[in-house]
């Protein structure tokens, strides 16, 4: 397994998207991790006297309208974005992948049922529905995770089903059937490992979308609730100050854009690295 990772890195270094995207993504995760151990200032600290300061040695990115250190808020905001997006794709993968595998292995009416459920979920505009769900269930990080997670399920189900269908046609599957293995065992032992590359690439895309969705929900006040900082919430609060303190909006905005860009670049690079290698296995 580790030789494979080393090989991926070896190929990845030559791919620009992989490197740039990878570095940005790595930075993002490290910052999020950092937030558990240290932030320049504790988040709760409201220091009205220090409000709306420009960047200085004391406050590296300045302060917001409550006197809170912007840098600290961005760091903890990163953590919240990671957690929400991560658990949301966890839901998507945890439920979507088994559904996709099941659909591909059984065909027939189970496949139909799963695909109709997929179509049904796709028919709802995801972000608006997420808003509706959190508005009904009540705002908060947990509910926004659930809302975003639900819309990840059909994405993964559909993509895994597609990949699995073509894998089922391959001869080593016939060999496994000749050995007496049943559908479930074959799906787990043979089909799933051959879809991992596609899964990882899609996961990076969905992760980026998850961050955007979380930012959107928080912007509307439906996501992470104060006092926990969130990039979306920061954007929302910055609105009133846009004319004379635009930096309050620019910082979280740039953070979101940079992170999502980094993830998308990494996903693209990863796809390039993983795909031709699959062909190199011949």
């Amino acid at each position, binding site marked *: 397994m580790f030789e494979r990772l080393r090989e991926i890195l070896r190929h990845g270094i030559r791919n620009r998207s992989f490197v740039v995207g990878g570095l940005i993504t790595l930075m993002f995760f490290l910052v999020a991790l950092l937030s558990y151990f240290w932030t320049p200032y504790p988040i709760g600290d409201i220091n009205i006297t220090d409000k709306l300061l420009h960047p200085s040695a004391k406050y590296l990115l300045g302060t917001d309208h409550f006197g809170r250190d912007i840098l600290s808020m961005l760091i903890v905001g990163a953590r919240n974005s990671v957690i929400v997006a991560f658990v949301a794709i966890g839901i998507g993968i945890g439920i979507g992948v088994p559904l996709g595998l099941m659909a591909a292995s059984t065909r027939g009416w189970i496949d139909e049922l799963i695909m109709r459920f997929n179509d049904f979920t796709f028919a709802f505009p995801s972000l608006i529905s997420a808003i509706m769900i959190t508005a009904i269930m009540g705002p908060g990080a947990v509910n926004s995770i659930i809302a975003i997670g639900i819309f990840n399920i059909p994405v993964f189900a559909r993509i895994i089903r597609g990949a699995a269908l073509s894998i089922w046609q391959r001869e*080593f599957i*016939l*060999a496994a059937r000749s050995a*007496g293995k049943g559908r479930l065992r074959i799906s787990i032992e043979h089909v799933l490992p*051959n879809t991992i590359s596609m899964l990882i690439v899609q996961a990076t895309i969905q992760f980026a979308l998850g961050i955007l969705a979380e930012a959107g929900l928080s912007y509307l006040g439906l996501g992470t609730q104060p006092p926990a900082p969130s990039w979306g919430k920061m954007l929302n609060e910055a609105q009133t100050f846009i004319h004379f303190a635009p930096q309050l909006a620019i910082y979280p905005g740039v953070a979101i854009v940079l992170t999502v860009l980094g993830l998308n670049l990494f996903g693209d690079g990863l796809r390039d690295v993983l795909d031709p290698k699959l062909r190199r*296995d011949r």
Partner: protein
Amino acid sequence: MALVRVDKVIREYRLPQKYLFQKASVFRALNNVSFSIETGESFGVVGESGCGKSTLARIIMALDKPTEGTVYYKDHDLFTIPKSELCQLRRHFQMVFQDPYGSLNPRKKVLPIVAEPLDMLEKQLSKKDRADRVKLMLSEVGLNSNDIEKYPHEFSGGQRQRIAIARALITKPSLIVADESVSALDVSVQAQVLNLIMDLQEKYNLAFLFISHDLSVVEFVTQKIAVIYLGRIVEQGETKDIFQQPLHPYTKLLLNAIPDVDPFNKKVKKKREKTRYQIDETSCQFIDRCPEATEICRQSEPQLKDHNGHLVACFNV
């Protein structure tokens, strides 16, 4: 009692309808195919693409169910016995596939690939015993026992086919179905694998069902063959009888078409006459390509008739 008996197998596929309320037409991939294979016998099936030979291979391996008819392994009807019994019987018949690149899971190492049939069919083996069996099989097929830690992509096509053969042998089966197993290999490697197959056959008294479109290979490896055209057996018998004296016009056509390796014997192109007859539902299905077709061939489909152990389905023999 024959080792394997294929009994009047018919395999139909429903074709997609052209219009919504039109009756779906049916395509017969295999039409009333029957033959048997004795223990230790090498039986060949030849035919061109689309004749149904791969479908036949799957049905014999019980990987596909026939629409009518059945397959007997010794006296077990593979399609009526309970699933658990079928699963246990699988140890006796295994398959080697055509594509040496596709028949091995690229994500697994050689050890789990070759040991796979043991997972279900000999669950009681300890990890060490399993590994030992795999190493033994690998050396039987001419590979190194250290190869168990490698991945398929580290091997050449011929070596992968050997791995596939090792996998097929690990449960000590009595029948191996080789579906175009050497077609994708280079000539020199093909020779190595064919020699291996014949050695193994002799050593373990294995029966082989050898499916191929390459007539020279089939002539070399098999003792009995069946020639299939559009899902029907048109000629069947001992290999040497059929190759020395083919009786069915289709067999003659196939044998004539093989390019001769002797450049001094340049084949003269024969004038291909337009056959006068059209195929329809009642006629012999070979009538539109048959140089020996006559009126009688329009009337019905010929059945296999015995000419001294040599079965032929033709009115003009």
